[in-house]
């Protein structure tokens, strides 16, 4: 287009949770992301670009939301983006197989005056339910383009892109009202709207009709938005006078949807039982629900750790062989290779396998639709400990890694519920702590190693429950009851292999990046501190000096100077605890380290050390995430403090009772 500046069309994707929004986003932008099912997975702001017919589009993936009421964080993000950023086109993704509820959001978007294009997704599932859409009629009644799509097979994507382009071009300033309320309410809306039009700032910033409706609905965040208007008092006065029961709007919107569907959809049957419902009669069963859940969880962990074991042994041998390639570590360079890189970093890299397999299992559970059910099954138990059922998913994820787990707390609507979930999340023993348990329990507990490791997981859960109860009760800002459980359960689905592998890979990349940066750096620093001044005994190396300085602090717990350094650096990443032992004992290969651990610790101090490692601090990255998610140094500081104290107390109790028992025996 000659003479015209190249413009980028800004497009926002919006829709209810589980409508296939992420899949459409991926189809449009070609970016690689995980297709998830539990609410909150798309809460990060994702943007992508796509070029269609030589026109550039920037696409923002908004969080999944049922309405635009701005109660939960997700909804607030979505709504504020549309109001304040005013994207050129808003693509509303509607689940055709669940259209009645989905159109509610569409109506809200139309009210908001957004330039909407409806993507009628999951047409294949709708067809299997014998739904027959009159697309033209639907589009006419809604007053916006409607494009049938099937995101999983990429069908309809070209048409959708075309529709976005043409919508962007013929953007109208004022859309004509297509969906009206009853005459009585329309009259009241009109009255408020006319008053709003007298304030030019308000009238130019927001769609006046939308503002009038929201005021009549007593929407608090909208009340804030008019607070600086000179007409404020007048507006509020009129709003009070023409008062409408706020719920009437929801009822009338659903009535309007009913009218629209009556004219544009055939084949709708009420309350037909689906296969998903039959499965749910088992998975959500009164007595079977929890046992089925426990079996699935046990299978998940079993799968992750037994399947990965042979791979771990193989990689360990490879590093052992690599470390020995240059001969005995007689010079600094050979020592760096053998003890620092292969003995330290290599030893930690082995744990890529349990991480990969654990996330494969979790991705399968997630994509199949089981995880939201697990939250529901566990809601009653969670309620007893003062938490919401939705807190359960982040807690479960915590066993993998606390970092994404804390990000996943965004799907918890209630701020207090969310804060408590974040505070206790690091007590869920993450994958990075597992190497520490494996090393120490393996060295000290022989055939009981498995039980000792399991006891750490149980200890973490018990402490998390206790802390949740304590926080609810004694911290003023956290008192109250958990929010009630209301959650849509998506139908069960067959997980797509590609999506499962992508998810696993995205987690593995996180670990590999960590290995390439913080773990490698940690290994180098530790190796340097342990080996220099060169030629001296390790006791008088820099590491030895640091360890001996810290030792008095931890001596009451029976930890020696090496354990002190391990814990000190373990704050960077928990895997470094193992890395440290690997380097300090100056040997590669697990068997030799095992002997060294046994020489330095008793079973009692070993158990205390494992408990201390579990509790004392989340890793640096997790702590950064806690700060980001709570937005508060106060809560982050509180977390550090309570965990340090708790770790010391618990380890102390283990040492005291342990010594008592072994003394008696």
């Amino acid at each position, binding site marked *: 287009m000659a003479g015209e500046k190249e413009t980028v069309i800004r497009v926002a994707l919006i829709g209810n949770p589980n409508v296939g929004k992420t899949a459409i986003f991926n189809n449009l932008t070609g970016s690689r992301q995980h297709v998830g099912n539990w609410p909150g997975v798309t809460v990060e702001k994702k943007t992508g670009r796509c070029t269609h017919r030589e026109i550039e589009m920037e696409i923002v993936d908004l969080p999944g939301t049922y309405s635009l009421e701005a*109660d939960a964080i997700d909804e607030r993000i979505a709504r504020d983006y549309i109001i304040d950023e005013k994207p050129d086109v808003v693509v509303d993704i509607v689940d055709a197989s669940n259209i009645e509820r989905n159109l509610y959001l569409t109506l809200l978007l139309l009210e908001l005056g957004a330039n909407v294009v409806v993507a009628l997704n999951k047409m294949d599932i709708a067809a299997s339910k014998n739904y027959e859409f009159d697309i033209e009629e639907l589009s006419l009644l809604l007053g916006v383009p409607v494009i049938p799509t099937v995101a999983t097979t990429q069908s309809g994507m070209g048409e959708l892109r075309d529709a976005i382009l043409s919508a962007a071009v013929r953007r109208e300033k004022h859309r004509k009202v297509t969906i009206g309320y009853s005459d*009585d309410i329309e009259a009241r809306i009109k009255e408020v709207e006319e008053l709003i039009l007298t304030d030019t700032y308000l009238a130019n910033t927001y769609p006046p009709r939308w503002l009038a409706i929201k005021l009549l609905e007593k929407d608090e965040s909208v009340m804030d938005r008019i607070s600086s208007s000179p007409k404020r008092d007048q507006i509020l006065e009129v709003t009070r006078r023409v008062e409408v029961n706020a719920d009437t709007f929801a009822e009338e919107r659903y009535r309007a949807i009913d009218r629209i569907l009556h004219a544009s959809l055939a084949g709708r049957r009420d309350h037909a039982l689906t296969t998903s*419902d039959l499965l*749910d009669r088992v998975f959500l069963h009164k007595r079977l629900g929890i046992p089925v859940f426990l079996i699935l969880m046990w299978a998940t962990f079993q799968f992750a750790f037994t399947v990965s074991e042979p791979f771990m042994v193989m990689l360990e041998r490879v590093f052992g062989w690599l470390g020995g390639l240059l001969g005995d570590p007689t010079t600094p360079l050979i020592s760096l290779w053998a003890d620092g890189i292969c003995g330290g970093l290599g030893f930690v890299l082995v744990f890529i396998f349990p991480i990969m397999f654990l996330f494969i299992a979790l991705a399968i559970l997630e994509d199949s639709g089981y995880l939201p059910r697990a939250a529901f099954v566990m809601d009653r138990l969670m*309620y007893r400990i003062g938490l919401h059922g939705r807190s359960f998913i982040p807690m479960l994820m915590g066993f993998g890694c606390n970092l994404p787990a804390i990000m996943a707390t965004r799907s918890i609507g209630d701020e207090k519920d969310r804060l408590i979930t974040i505070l206790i999340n690091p007590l869920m023993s993450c994958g990075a702590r597992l190497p520490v348990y494996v090393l120490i329990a393996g060295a000290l507990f022989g055939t009981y190693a498995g039980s000792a490791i399991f006891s750490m997981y149980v200890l973490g859960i018990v402490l998390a429950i206790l802390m949740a109860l304590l926080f609810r009760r004694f911290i003023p800002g956290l008192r109250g009851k958990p929010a009630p459980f209301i959650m*849509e359960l998506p139908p069960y689905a067959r997980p797509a292999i590609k999506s499962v592998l992508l998810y696993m890979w995205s987690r593995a990349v996180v670990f590999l990046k960590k290995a390439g940066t913080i773990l490698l750096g940690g290994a180098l620093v530790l190796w340097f501190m342990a080996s220099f001044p060169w030629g001296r005994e390790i006791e008088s190396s820099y590491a030895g000096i640091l360890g001996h300085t810290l030792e008095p602090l931890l001596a009451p717990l029976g930890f020696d100077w090496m354990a002190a350094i391990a814990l000190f650096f373990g704050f960077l990443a928990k895997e470094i605890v193992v890395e440290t032992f690997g380097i300090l004992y100056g040997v590669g290969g697990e068997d030799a380290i095992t002997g060294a651990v046994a020489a330095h610790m008793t079973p009692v101090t070993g158990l205390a050390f494992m408990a201390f490692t579990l509790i004392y601090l989340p890793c640096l990255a997790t702590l950064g995430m806690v700060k980001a998610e709570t937005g508060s140094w106060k809560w982050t500081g509180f977390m550090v403090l309570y965990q340090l104290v708790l770790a010391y107390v618990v380890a102390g109790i283990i040492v005291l009772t342990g010594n008592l028992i072994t003394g008696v025996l």
Partner: protein
Amino acid sequence: MFGMRGRIFGAKKIHEIEEKVEHIHEDVEHVLRSHSGDEELSSHLKEIDEHLHELIADSKSLESGVPLGLLSAGDEGVVLGYCGGRGVAKRLLELGFTPSSRVKVISGSPGLLVDVKGSRIALGRGIAMKILVDLDGR
């Protein structure tokens, strides 16, 4: 259009509301008698009186309602209204639990999985007890 069907009631007992409404009704009658000449006022008062009676009728229909939480798998009903706070009611309305919509229990206890407007909503027991429904065949 302005029927009071299925509005939200607090913890107040329905017969208490009924008594109060009856009092107001008497007052209205009294004012009507003493200001019989004022057309506008009497038409307003009559309107108020009408609303009040609708309110009583609705209270009675609510009273006949059963908490959704007491239903078991396979049961069906029609939503009458909720007791409880605004926030929860709003959420339920958005998800389709509008008054007079049909709900069917797919799986029962401890919480409920229900079908409403074709989607499956899981409700904790606490919230399920706060939704009042009219059972079929009553």
